């Protein structure tokens, strides 16, 4: 089975597609972690929210593309409110407390979604434009999944050039590298963090809408993907864009092939991968070189 080229090609594409979603989800987590040593455990909840808001928008407007454009904005707004109301208030407290607060929000988000959209799982139809399928080595493969892969690559490129070429990108890089010095020379790291945080939330929302036609939408869809995203951050190395991309690729592939070859042990293999990276390279595969420790 493993040596069948068609099978391999299809699974490779599936792996790429999952990697693409994971990248959208984990890049925000990772960069914020690099900037503030803080991890938003409710990031998966924002992803779920993106999917559900997308669902409602599609139902209301009958347009996938409208949902595709608006749901991320809505999620970014939720993230901004959350940052202003809760995180900013907790800035003086330790990052641990912030992390714990976001953990509490997972419970809140889960039941809110159940209350608003119900307990049942829903499916989102792919837009007409991408509803068909293409031939891959004699097998049909949904066009939409190729679109997901392409989207991940586009976002990666946009972020890469954004970080390298824009002023905000420069501030973010300086902040991840050495926050104290960056602040000391007058860069507004706080504001950059806020923008990055909101942008990360928007990407999580985008991942949610985009996942709609591929994975089913149900309360609890947040936690399994959150775990995968956390593993991506740990494996790739927090704070690094390339790390998030490489981590997403690795985790996406291991998870996809694991589920096909030995579904019982897929999660164990992932966990072993993470443990291995932590033991051999505690800073992740592509660690950010910090000026201080």
């Amino acid at each position, binding site marked *: 089975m493993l040596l069948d080229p068609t099978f391999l090609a299809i699974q490779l594409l599936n792996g790429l597609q999952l990697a693409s979603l994971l990248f959208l989800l984990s890049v925000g987590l990772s960069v914020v*972690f690099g900037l503030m*040593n*803080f*991890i938003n*455990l409710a990031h998966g909840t924002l992803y779920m929210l993106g999917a559900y808001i997308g669902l409602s928008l599609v139902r209301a407007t009958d347009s996938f593309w409208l949902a595709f454009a608006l749901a991320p904005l809505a999620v970014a707004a939720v993230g901004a409110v959350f940052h202003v109301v*809760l995180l900013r*208030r*907790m800035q003086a407290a*330790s*990052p*641990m*407390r912030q*992390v*714990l*607060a976001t*953990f*509490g*929000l*997972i*419970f*809140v*988000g*889960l*039941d*809110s979604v*159940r*209350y608003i959209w119900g307990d049942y799982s829903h499916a989102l139809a792919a837009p007409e434009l991408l509803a068909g399928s293409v031939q891959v080595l004699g097998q049909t493969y949904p066009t939409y999944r190729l679109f997901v892969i392409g989207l991940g690559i586009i976002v990666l490129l946009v972020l890469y050039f954004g970080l390298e070429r824009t002023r905000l990108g420069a501030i973010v890089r300086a902040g991840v590298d050495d926050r104290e010095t960056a602040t000391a020379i007058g860069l507004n790291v706080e504001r950059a963090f806020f923008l990055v945080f909101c942008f990360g939330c928007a990407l999580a929302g985008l991942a949610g809408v985009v996942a709609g036609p591929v994975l089913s939408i149900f309360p609890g869809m947040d*936690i*399994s993907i959150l*775990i995968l995203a*956390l*593993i991506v*951050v*740990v494996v790739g190395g927090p704070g690094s864009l390339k790390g998030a991309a490489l981590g997403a690729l690795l985790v996406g592939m291991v998870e996809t092939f694991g589920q096909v070859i030995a*579904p*019982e*042990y*897929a*999660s*164990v293999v*992932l*966990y072993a991968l*993470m*443990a291995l990276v*932590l*033991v051999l390279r*505690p800073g992740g595969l592509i660690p950010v070189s910090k000026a201080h420790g």
Partner: protein
Amino acid sequence: MMSRETWRAGTAILLLVAALVSWVRADYFGHELLTQIAILAIFAMSLDLLAGFTGMISLGHAAFYGLGAYATAAFNLMLEWSPWAAMAGAVVVGAVAALIVGSFAVRLSGVFFIMVTLAVGEALHAYLFKSRAFGGDDGLSGIARPDTSSIGISFDDPAVFSLVCVGFACLIYALLELVVRSPFGRLLVAIHLNPSRVRALGCPVSRYKLAAFTLAGAIAALAGSLTAQHNAFISPELLTWTTSGEALIVVIVGGLGSLVGAAAGAGVMVLAMHHLSGVTDYWMFFMGLFFVGVVLFAGNGIYGVIDAVRRRLGGAAH
């Protein structure tokens, strides 16, 4: 002025009296609740040793709790060990698993530790959810409680079993109280406060943290084993992140680093869950909000209030 320890012991005795009074007055359902409280107290106290004393906030502690339950079921149902032997075996399994996970996890700093423990817990959950040998998402049922008919009492009687669980909770409290007062326990607190300084004073920090992690894993497994015998049934539900989260909420609401706070928190949690779930389907929403509130505003939870009273009285006496 009475010391912190004396107050803690006093609070513990008060809690025990409250437990015994409610045991006398309880009906069938009351005994079920009391059993749940005692088991959650054991589980939460083991987490308090990690989170409160050593400063290792684990979001995957349910992994060891669930492992204890699964090991009990496996030993009892598949290997046909006696319930007591299965329980002892479960504790060993919990300790060994914690030793393995801890051997790399304890080296990680706070936020990394949170992420990794959460991931480990979910990985184990995902494995058991799919494993055919352990019944997948249906779980396993038919786990036996110890047979004590020879001494004329039956563990199948809810009143007896709830008393046994309260007894176990007392035992674990006494054990942990001894540990946190011991030189080892005091060093755990010092590690929490300033790890690099303890290291410079000659303490092999990771080894001490690993010892605490292993002990906590073993105790969590004992709580899991009692749950398996209580329900006569286990499922992957025992290992979900929500179980870990509830335990952490119990510890934080009760007051980190106080042991009795965790026990009191367990009482509040079980009763609140019991009453809230009767009123609304969405009690997790309120629990989550409450949790955020406690993290935000109430630094030291229930025990923080008791401790403030102690200091007030102590200050007045001077």
